[in-house]
């Protein structure tokens, strides 16, 4: 029977694979600070994540351990990222630092990782806590920039620049986005506490053009406006354009992110300031967290990645040390690595 013949060959081949698998086995690395680290990020085609990868790889080579970084083809390649982590989880890494594309898409392989007793470090985008608990996933630490802190720093700077009184407007990203809400919320609290009045808050979808149009309208309606806060740099640069078009070069514009073109704009007198996030530092912290965990240490549940306000005073410094932070920042893991 032609089918049973073929089935027979397949059965033999599969058994051969089985036998090889059982005899092969993984090389279990002992839990030492030298354990291998796997890092899974969203996508290398985005500057932010590419920089985080650089930081992680640097930390690895600096400490002399093997760090493997993998990311998907695009910011929304959800299942691809799941498969990447699934594949890495079958290898002999002792610690996994991951930045999931959605709150839950890495949970399936993470469950296996926790079950095997390996450590998990969550970077930048939070894993949904309820789903993680339901799947039995243990996350050792969550490392991210504190978005509301970033807004707060911008708010305090605005208060200082405007001397404690004046009108300001706020431009957010996509309506409903958690990071955007945290940033603008932090700014508004600090600004109002410092005596400023927030006359308008709009959402410009992280888009430069939309921000430019919105700012133009706001300036026309509020000719006495003292400054703008934007939830990202792209929109901030659009707002700067709007102020220049209106001939109102004294209006203060503060962005968020710390992209290179934003810092260059600050250095040449366009953008007033920005709050830099440092994906590079997040990468370093992630690897260091793994090193600490591999050596058996307990780590704090959340760690804030460094942020810094960049203005005319330190723009040159910031550019020189880009993408690294120009000031020392707290790395709670170095002390924990044995």
């Amino acid at each position, binding site marked *: 029977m032609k089918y049973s013949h073929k089935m027979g060959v397949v059965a033999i081949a599969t058994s051969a694979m089985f036998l090889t698998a059982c005899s*092969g*086995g993984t090389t279990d690395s002992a839990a030492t600070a030298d354990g291998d680290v796997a890092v899974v990020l969203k996508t290398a085609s985005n500057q932010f994540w590419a920089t985080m990868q650089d930081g992680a790889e640097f930390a690895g080579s600096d400490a002399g351990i093997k760090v493997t970084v993998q990311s998907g083809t695009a910011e929304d390649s*959800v299942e691809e990222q799941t498969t*990447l982590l699934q*594949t890495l*989880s079958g*290898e002999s890494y002792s610690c996994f630092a991951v930045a999931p594309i959605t709150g*839950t898409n890495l*949970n399936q392989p993470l469950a296996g990782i926790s079950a095997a007793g390996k450590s998990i470090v969550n970077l930048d985008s939070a894993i949904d806590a309820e789903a993680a608990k339901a799947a039995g996933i243990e996350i050792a630490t969550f490392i991210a920039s504190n978005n509301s802190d970033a807004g707060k720093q911008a708010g305090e700077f605005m208060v200082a620049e405007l001397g404690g009184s004046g009108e300001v407007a706020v431009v957010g990203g996509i309506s409903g986005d958690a990071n955007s809400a945290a940033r603008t919320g932090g700014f508004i609290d600090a600004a109002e506490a410092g005596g400023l009045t927030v006359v308008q808050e709009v959402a410009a979808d992280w888009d430069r053009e939309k921000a430019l149009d919105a700012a133009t309208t706001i300036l026309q309606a509020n000719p006495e406006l003292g400054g703008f806060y934007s939830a990202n740099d792209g929109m901030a640069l659009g707002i700067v354009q709007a102020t220049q078009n209106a001939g109102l070069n004294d209006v203060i514009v503060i962005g968020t992110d710390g992209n290179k073109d934003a810092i260059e704009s600050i250095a040449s007198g366009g953008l007033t300031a920005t709050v830099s996030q440092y994906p590079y530092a997040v990468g370093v912290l992630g690897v260091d967290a793994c090193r600490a965990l591999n050596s058996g240490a307990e780590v704090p549940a959340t760690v804030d990645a460094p942020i810094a306000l960049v203005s005319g005073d330190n723009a040159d410094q910031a550019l020189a040390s880009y993408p690294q932070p120009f000031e020392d920042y707290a790395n709670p893991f170095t002390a924990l690595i044995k």
Partner: protein
Amino acid sequence: MTTPISAGPSALLARLGLSREQLGMATVAKLAPLLALIILVIIGAIVSPTFLSFGNIRSMLLTSAILMIFAVGQTFVIATGGIDLSVASIAQLSGVSLGIVVAGGLSPELGMLGALVIGTAAGALNGLIVSKLKITDFIVTLGTFSAYSGLTLLLSDAKPQIVNSSFLIAISTRGFGLVSFLLLIAIVVAVVAHFVMFRTPFGTHVLAVGGNKKAADALGISFVRVKVGVYAISGLLAAVAGILLVARLGAAEPTAGSAYQLTSIAAAVLGGVSLFGGKGSIIGPLIGALVLTGVVNLLTITGVPVYYQPIAVGAVVVLAAYLRRYER
């Protein structure tokens, strides 16, 4: 002209369905999917010390499960000489319907049942349009692919819906040793599919319609029943895959899994299913799915940049199709 069949080696060839002169290249072609797998295993073992490790084989089997299910459904349709370009969007539609039920506070089990019904219905609709309105499969499923995708985005508001179901979590994360539950489901699907295709009259009719529609019509086989049947099967299996995708991703993602549209066809072709219809196999597409998954896996563990993966997959499919030329 072949000599009369008697006992001995000729009988063995007869059992394989081959005549003497067809041996050689033809056998290579027939066993192409298996050969591809063996070659992959050999290359993998040479290139990487961990390719054949327990953990990695488990990963490959797990990851290939969903593709296997899509490929089996696609095989039924292709065997009738058709093609289903809407499988990924039916999976997304089914997943989203599961998400909606869960978001509405009802049990995930009910949601899964609903998802299966919706997937089957969506598939059956494809079959009806193809057979009753007599429009070619490619065009019909191209149209429904768009329609079902749009419907999915509409129903989900283009946002993912988290689905917390202990059943789905257990399915996606647990198993027995090498065999994770995802793989087990794929195997069950394959066994049933094999039975349907080779042990039931319906299966024979599927191959007949694909092989010689004119003869099938003349001999009284209902084109409508066969087409609706295979598309319903494809839709049902797409729904199963959609549910497993939700399990794997922890949420109903309206746009996840679009790649399966093409890889389901690639796995079937790699597995020896002829796009002209009339020939089918279930174990072939399973092996095809395993090979495609294995290639991606090997590239990942050897650190090759992820952008090479689609190139490698394409090359493998073309190579396998080339080998098929010798099968005639």
